[in-house]
């Protein structure tokens, strides 16, 4: 945000490394391809990207400071608003961190419900992603509307279970806030059973499309070692062929009980990133089928955990989960008071942008939009 406001609307010329005259384009913040309010200062040599500096903070509200002045419970609704497409995985990561911090056990049924809701969230995220990236490539409308139509079905399930469609506020320390309403599991089973047909349709719409292939293949690829060095996790890392899935590695929750595969890409380009998400959705559906079939009875929350005046013991904890966008971590320090002394979110969207410049160098300006779309960011989480 260093450039004066009036200069943003004017093209500017800056000097390149070898004395070239480069055109500086301010892409965003109000641009449909930036998925929110995000700006990139792109220096162009002709049409080629020579430099790219992302500019953040338009949505910054200091989530961490707010959480440090709220009670542990009071932060849960705020975590909904980090990555507002995936509120339930945010809830889970935070609840997991607090459970580690205080040494809380979670009942089995609650673990199952967490897995079910988290995998449904992954479905939502990846489905919406497929729609958004098509929007980034200029195919406004169809794909996004089909994706949102299916997403609605899962949001209906969420509303039934948690009371809200997006800001679910569902998980609690030691379990989940409420049990499933009557008939919910059957409705969820029905949605899960019908989902593969939609995925087939969406794949048919997208994956063979010549325009999509031309726009995404060999675009934005980086080797897996570079991605790992840049802290990039989640589908992006796996698309480059690195088999690293926190669900498998940490086995948090009860994921070690479920059979699922970790899809891997070969090239790490934008096409692989799209494909990975399609394959992950299939695996999520497998987990969902198994979890919904074997959902055990029992309590959904550990009754020993206090709702009011919850105070974890002195100490610190870092916990992470495999969020739909990557590794989502929470770092908490407790000084024994009802408010966290330090509360930190490790936002995958934010850290995945570290290598945005590297991915875009030497590409055309139009590719920047596709690469940014393939990283799949949500500004609520980037800016916090």
């Amino acid at each position: 945000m260093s450039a004066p406001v009036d200069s943003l609307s004017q093209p500017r010329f800056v000097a390149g490394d070898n004395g070239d005259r480069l055109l500086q384009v301010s892409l965003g913040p109000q641009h449909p391809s930036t998925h929110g309010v995000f700006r990139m200062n792109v220096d162009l040599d002709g049409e080629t990207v020579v430099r790219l500096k992302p500019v953040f903070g338009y949505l910054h509200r200091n989530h961490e400071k707010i959480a440090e002045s709220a009670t542990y419970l009071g932060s849960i609704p705020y975590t909904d608003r980090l990555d507002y497409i995936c509120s339930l995985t945010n809830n889970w990561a935070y609840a997991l961190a607090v459970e580690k911090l205080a040494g809380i056990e979670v009942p089995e049924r609650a673990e199952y419900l967490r897995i079910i809701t988290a995998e449904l969230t992954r479905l939502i995220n990846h489905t919406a992603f497929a729609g958004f990236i098509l929007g980034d490539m200029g195919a406004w409308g169809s794909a996004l509307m089909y994706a949102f139509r299916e997403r609605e079905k899962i949001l209906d399930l969420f509303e039934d279970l948690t009371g809200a469609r997006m800001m679910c506020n569902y998980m609690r320390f030691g379990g989940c806030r409420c049990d499933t309403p009557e008939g919910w599991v059957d409705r969820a089973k029905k949605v899960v059973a019908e989902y593969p047909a939609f995925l087939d349709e969406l794949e048919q719409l997208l994956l063979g499309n010549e325009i999509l292939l031309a726009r995404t293949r060999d675009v934005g690829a980086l080797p897996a070692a570079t991605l790992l060095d840049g802290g990039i996790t989640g589908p992006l890392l796996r698309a480059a062929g690195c088999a690293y899935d926190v669900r498998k590695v940490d086995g948090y929750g009860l994921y070690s009980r479920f059979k699922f595969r970790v899809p891997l890409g070969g090239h790490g380009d934008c096409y692989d990133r799209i494909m990975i998400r399609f394959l992950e959705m299939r695996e999520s559906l497998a987990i969902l089928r198994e979890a919904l079939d074997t959902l055990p009875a029992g309590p959904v929350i550990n009754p020993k955990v206090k709702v009011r005046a919850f105070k974890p013991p002195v100490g610190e904890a870092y916990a992470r989960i495999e969020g739909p966008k990557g590794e989502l971590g929470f770092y908490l320090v407790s000084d024994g008071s009802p408010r966290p002394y330090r509360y930190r979110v490790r936002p995958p969207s934010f850290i995945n942008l570290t290598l945005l410049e590297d991915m875009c160098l030497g590409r055309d300006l139009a590719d920047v939009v596709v690469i940014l779309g393939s990283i799949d960011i949500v500004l609520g989480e980037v800016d916090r």
Partner: protein
Amino acid sequence: MNPEPAVILEQIRAAVPAARPVLLRNPGPAGQDSILLDTASAQDVFRFLKTAPGLEFDLLSNLTGTDWPEPATAHSVGVPPEIPPPPAQGFLEVVCHLYSTLRREGPLVVRMRTADRAEGAHLPTLTPVYRSAEFQEREVFDLFGVVFEGHPDLRRILMWDEFHDFPMRRDYVAPDDYEYEPTPHEAVWERAKEHYAVPDGTSETGAPAPPQSLGLADEAACEAACSPLREERDRLSPNPPASDREVTP
């Protein structure tokens, strides 16, 4: 699977003789003990942790800061068995969580502390070792004011460049520059009154009238709170918004 910081500590001592690592116990049930590094050899130690066979902590997952204006609090949270001389004044701390994707281990918690919270708030950058530190260090610099020496592009990242303070510090006081609105919260209301000298209905004894359900009940108070705002806005922008103009039937 969690690594053994005590074992790694010995390996660090053997490999980087200049390093003075200290083991900090985590008193909580999470059991994530941490290694405190001195700043001089920190980069070497991180390079060792990243590359040494058998360690290979190749993913710097999380890097963040913590503000400890009172060192006593820091010691209650992390109690070292070999107690280093506690800094007399407070300090800032940078905490890193490292993972090994090859050996599927982690988190290894490594921390560094600054000498103080003012001029001495300097730490070596980790960006040459771990690229993922780049934005996270900028964030710590932005919100905590830790200067990372050698960082390629140390600018504010979330706050705007002209901002001066460090909002995540414990003693940060938010600037009192909000646009006040009629609110049911008396704390905010009191501050609003300080700003705009609202002619409130003080009682005969001079004590301020209780801020009753403002807004809904009290049209006058609402108007009183808004009018200075409007004047201010009108002064700033020559054309008042249409909603404020006189509507002639």
